[in-house]
């Protein structure tokens, strides 16, 4: 049996890995935009080479033809050094290998706050900000959904229940949309009316407080509106989905039998409703969490939050391919790792899967 499990794990890992590879490769191709990025790099190099040659006192005496010749030589050398003498398709595989091994290289245009052009540093500088904001948001949403979903599933048809169904469509307006209005009210109008308002955006006051506690408080203050915008948008639909989910599972036969056995409500909720439904709930949460780290580009733009989302946007607009590819690789690995981990979680949570039953 052990060999069977091992074989299965191996098979899954290989498939996941291949998925990552293909996805990254596609990104490399698209990010190159049909040679456009190549052109940028090349013209960059030509410019810097020309400048350095012309400014080099050693070449002062030479005439134009000779200078041009030297420039061309050095230029072509430089291209050879970074492998640009070979066609893109050849280079794409090198990029792929680098990306997969997390050798993310240097950015073309962007740089980190500390001035480094190392893509890994750029990304790692921003990642914690996004993780902080969105993990907090997702956890709050998760518990709201779970708690109220469970609560409402037992009060089907009650006023609160119908209210939650009524408010669920609010989610059709994305979080960032509410964000704009929250800024309008709590930042703009409040300042007009009360002389004080929540921040317009950003992660921390400028200049940032030195004291650690004050810094943390400042970050918290800046988190209020973004988190709130997502809560307004997604709480109701979350509660609605969970409540529908639990409703469906409360009408299962084994729940009824549990009631017939005279078991108290709390035990039934825990063991007969929550426990069997954990696999899809956990899956949903994990994937949503990972997704939110990468997908909240617009929210980060609206709130000027220095995270992965704004990095994605900046890199996309500037065609900073190394950064883009780096981000995609990291995301792909994170996702693959999560999916992989979930398989184990499934096995633990649902005994039917262990022996291949159901």
């Amino acid at each position, binding site marked *: 049996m052990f060999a069977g499990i091992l074989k299965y794990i191996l098979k899954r890992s290989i498939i996941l890995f291949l*998925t990552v590879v293909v*996805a990254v490769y596609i990104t490399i191709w*698209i990010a190159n935009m049909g040679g456009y990025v190549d052109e940028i790099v090349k013209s960059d190099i030509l410019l810097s080479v020309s400048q350095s040659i012309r400014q080099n006192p050693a070449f002062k005496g030479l005439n134009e033809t000779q200078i041009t010749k030297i420039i061309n030589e050095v230029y072509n050398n430089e291209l050879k050094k970074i492998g640009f003498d070979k066609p893109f398709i050849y280079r794409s595989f090198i990029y792929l290998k680098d990306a997969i091994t997390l050798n993310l290289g240097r950015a073309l245009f962007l740089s980190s706050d500390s001035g480094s052009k190392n893509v890994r540093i750029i990304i790692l500088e921003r990642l914690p900000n996004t993780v902080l904001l969105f993990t907090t948001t997702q956890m709050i949403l998760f518990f709201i959904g779970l708690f109220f979903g469970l609560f409402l599933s037992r009060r089907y048809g009650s006023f609160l229940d119908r209210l939650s169904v009524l408010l669920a469509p609010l989610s059709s307006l994305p979080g960032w949309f509410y964000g704009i209005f929250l800024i*309008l009210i709590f930042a703009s109008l409040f300042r007009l009316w009360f002389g004080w308002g929540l921040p317009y955006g950003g992660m921390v006051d400028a200049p940032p407080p030195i004291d650690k506690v004050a810094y943390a408080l400042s970050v918290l203050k800046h988190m209020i509106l973004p988190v709130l915008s997502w809560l307004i948008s997604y709480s109701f639909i979350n509660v609605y989905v969970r409540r529908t989910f639990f409703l469906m599972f409360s009408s299962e036969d084994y729940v009824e039998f549990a009631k017939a056995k005279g078991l108290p409500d709390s035990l039934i909720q825990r063991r007969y409703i929550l426990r069997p439904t954990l696999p899809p709930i956990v899956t949903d949460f994990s994937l949503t969490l990972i997704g939110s780290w990468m997908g909240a*580009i617009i929210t980060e733009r609206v709130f000027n939050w220095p995270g992965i989302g704004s990095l994605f946007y900046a890199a996309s607009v500037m065609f900073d391919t190394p950064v883009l590819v780096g981000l995609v690789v990291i995301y792909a690995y994170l996702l693959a790792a999560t999916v992989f981990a979930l398989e184990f979680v499934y096995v633990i949570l649902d005994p039917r899967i262990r022996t291949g039953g159901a």
Partner: protein
Amino acid sequence: MSKVKGFLSQLLLYKSALIGLIIIIFLIGLSIYTVITIPYEEATRLWRAGEQYWLDNPRNALPSWVNIFSQKRLPETIILSTEKPQVGVSKAIVSAPGERFSIIKVKFSFRYEYDDFPSEINLFLKASFNESNPHITIYWVKPGGEQITLKSLLISRETMYYISNDDRLAEEIRGYISKKINRTIEYEAPVTLLLFAEEDNSVLKPDTAKVMKGVYELWIEGIIFETKVDLDAKLVIYGKVYGLAGTDHLRRDLSIALLWGTPIALSFGVTASVTVALIQMFIGALSAWFGGIADTVLQRVTEVFMVLPFLPLLIMISTFYKFNIWVLLAVVIILTVFGSGVKNYRAMFMQIKEFPYVEAARAYGAGNLRIILLYLIPKVLPTIIPSIVISVADFVFLEAALAILGLGDPLAPTWGKIIDDAYEHGALYKGLYYWVLQPSIMLALTSLSFAILGFALDKIFNPRLKEI
């Protein structure tokens, strides 16, 4: 037919569905009206047109109906032109017989009863002459009869005098009024205020300055040393309100974009939603029905797409190619089609294909395609209608989101583009809330109506909910 009737009557039971449906019908009506009255080419032409076309409109003006609710009557734009015969416009060009010069006298007069000052004042002059440029002097006459010389200048064939931008004039009049009321006006009062203000202590602070109501006049007097001459003038006193929806920073009438945003949003949202759902369903059915290699391949392809970051790729492609909106639609569809929806449909079809009536169909020799199209898909169709309706909202917002990010079609007059312009020009900081609120409300209305309808449909169509 009775099935449709039965379904409709069930739907109408839900008041929320009714509201959603009514709003959608209203939006469709609005779209039809817009498409008929302003054809698309004209709309884009207008929207794209440079400032020249919109020059008669005020900049960043509020919608006119604001005046209904506000105590202060905000000014509308007053345009007086010698090219159009109007009350309050008089022009006389007199060539004295025997003399080789002409005297031009243009007089504009208008009533100003508003409670607030205009936003700008411009004078457009067109002169026709042979060689010598006319020399004119412009006077401003306030209701009291008091005459102020604005400027003396030589004009060319086309001259624009931005009266409100004339800083030197502002200083002059400031000094003049200060002397008159024996107090110094401390702040840098703009021309628009000074030319219209009550000349008493109220003018000392910008918040307290009052409008002198009454009849104003603008005189243009000039001399040209030729006989065959003509001069046309247009005085535009820009208001602070305009039209149904106000104007933006380029003086464009926002109602055009608001109206046209409707059919664009609707067609974008519905087309994307329906197309994606249908294709995903078909792929899911193929995957579930044929199984084997086809299934494996399709599943792996789906997984690759699920790993690819949708929005960043879309941003990259849009930044590079600067699409028009319909190509954008196609790209969005292609990128979305292999998403997680396929997995859901596949799961549904895996269940359905085991149903006895499907087996029966196979037994009588039905072809694969026939089974997929006539047996599998129709069974699943009702259940997914709610999600199709709900996802319209998502696509409408996707288009808006791209516009807000500054991508998408830069020429299409969409709601997202309005919000983008507004955000770019600091609408929230400047308090130009209407600029953001109007398109936002349209977006919200559209999305909410589809979402409400979709949720009500879900209650009807979702078989598992019915059991409860």
